[in-house]
């Protein structure tokens, strides 16, 4: 009978059973289960953040080595030199996030409510691009947006390029190596991260709510505004976070599809760390980016009132 009394205490205790006294031997079980994984995260995720903070206030050179001198001026220098890249990162990432939402919502809605027996197929097609390396797919945009190519030709004929050039998004009759190309690449790369959470929250909506709204003489647009959209807000919030956060730190799109005028903060961190080898500046920039993202995300989650995302 020992087996029965030794059952581990269950988190969602069913009402039918009286709460059990935790077994003595089991008291350490959760800690043993947590230990290796958490140790891994502590040593290779949390500790590096501390190391990075310490690196950012060091001075010295690659030859003589670096020492902590609490040189906070690095932060000031980094910010005053690279603030355009910071602003650009946030702008590009925000534009890409809005575009992802506008493009992704109809598709998520289509899969959730209108696809019928095509649902699984469309779902596979949304995930399928992941199966090819994202770098190869991003390089394909070089072909799509190539100078004098069909896409640029159509945009030019429709005088879209005149407007975007006037806004500073494109340059003359080029799309490649402009902000528009970078935002287009960011939107493309993070679109599935918007569609999947949107779909999850749309799929949970009871279709009878739509019928009820219809029975109460709500027009389709009213139903959408008053029923569907509010109920899909958790998906909107997690989708925008999953898009915005990686897009802000991305440097692949800006490097492959942009030019030196579209460098984002990720590009600066990458080149400072891997090419110029100015570790303190790179660490300071990375630390500022981390702090900015955490600040924005916390603010956004508080504002949107969905704190139980995880």
């Amino acid at each position, binding site marked *: 009978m020992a087996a029965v009394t030794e059952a581990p205490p269950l988190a969602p205790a069913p009402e039918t059973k009286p709460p059990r006294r935790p077994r003595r031997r089991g008291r350490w079980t959760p800690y043993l289960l947590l230990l290796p994984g958490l140790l891994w995260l502590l040593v290779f995720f949390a500790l590096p953040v501390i190391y*990075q903070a310490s690196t950012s206030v060091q001075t010295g050179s690659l030859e003589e080595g670096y020492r902590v001198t609490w040189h906070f001026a690095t932060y000031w220098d980094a910010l005053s030199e690279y603030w355009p890249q910071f602003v650009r990162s946030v702008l590009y990432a925000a534009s890409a996030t809005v575009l992802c939402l506008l493009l992704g919502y109809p598709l998520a809605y289509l899969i959730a409510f*209108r696809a019928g027996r095509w649902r699984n197929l469309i779902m596979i*097609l949304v995930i399928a691009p992941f199966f*090819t390396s994202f770098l190869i*797919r991003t390089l394909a945009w070089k072909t799509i947006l190539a100078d004098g190519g069909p896409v640029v030709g159509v945009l030019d004929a429709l005088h879209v390029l005149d407007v975007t050039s006037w806004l500073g998004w494109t340059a003359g009759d080029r799309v490649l190596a402009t902000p528009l190309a970078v935002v287009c690449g960011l939107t493309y790369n993070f679109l599935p991260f918007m569609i999947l959470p949107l779909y999850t929250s749309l799929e949970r909506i009871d279709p009878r709510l739509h019928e009820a709204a219809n029975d109460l003489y709500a027009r389709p647009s009213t139903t959408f505004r008053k029923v569907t959209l509010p109920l899909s807000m958790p998906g909107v919030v997690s989708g925008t976070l999953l898009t915005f956060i990686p897009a802000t730190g991305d*440097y692949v799109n800006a490097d492959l599809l942009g030019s030196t005028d579209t460098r984002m903060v990720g590009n600066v961190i990458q080149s400072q760390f891997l090419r110029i080898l100015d570790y303190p500046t790179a660490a300071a920039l990375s630390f500022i980016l981390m702090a900015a993202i*955490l600040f924005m995300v916390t603010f956004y989650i508080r504002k949107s009132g969905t704190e139980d995302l995880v």
Partner: protein
Amino acid sequence: MTFVNWLKRHFVVVAGLLTLAYLLLPNVIVTVFSFNNPKGRFNYTWQEFSTEAWKDPCGVSGLCASLSLSLHIALWATLGATLLGTMIAFALVRYRFRARGAVNSLIFLPMAMPEVVMAASLLTLFLNMGAQLGFWTVLIAHIMFCLSFVVVAVKARVMSMDPRLEQAAQDLYAGPFQTFVRVTLPIAAPGIAAGALLAFALSFDDFIITNFNAGSTVTFPMFVWGSAQRGTPVQINVIGTAMFVVAVLLVLVSMIVGNRRRRQKAL
């Protein structure tokens, strides 16, 4: 007028399919250009049809070596992250313990952090420790960022498990170990498999963290990145297309098999 009405009624379908086209267009380009015979070093403009690259996918030096290295790293990273992540997920769902909030945020933070920040900070750790950058540092990094995703996937499955099944097993005199292997593990398996697949995909395709911590080790994404600067061989498109086709076929087969099984069960 009728067209406007039609568009109004089917707006969602039209817009959704356009988005789908936007998502799939690059894959079409990758496939088409795997049959290109480019002039010069870059494979960005169409020249003429050729199957040369398909006949010799490993024809570019270093390409297949990088592919096998990526597969190696992804396999080990999946194994490590799945093992550690599943243990954490079980602890989180099944036990009460101190500092649960801190544990949750330690798992959540790696997913809420731009990759470049994790990559850069991990590099400062390795530099400070004087670690040799290469296979091991990449593997450590991959296990680190895949771990959280496995925890989330497994946690969702374990949370929806009926605890009475395990109680039933124990009432039938199964020991804790037997209960775990014969009851708990099979029920949790889909969640663990989903987490493992996610980890594999994330690790195999990771570029940013690898770029920082690989030193001179060349994984497949690193090879593609390098070739984007030096000249893109057609073989890259061949491998991209082949991966796509194989993966889609696997998914379709598993779906058909799953459907048939469900139908048989229903009968």
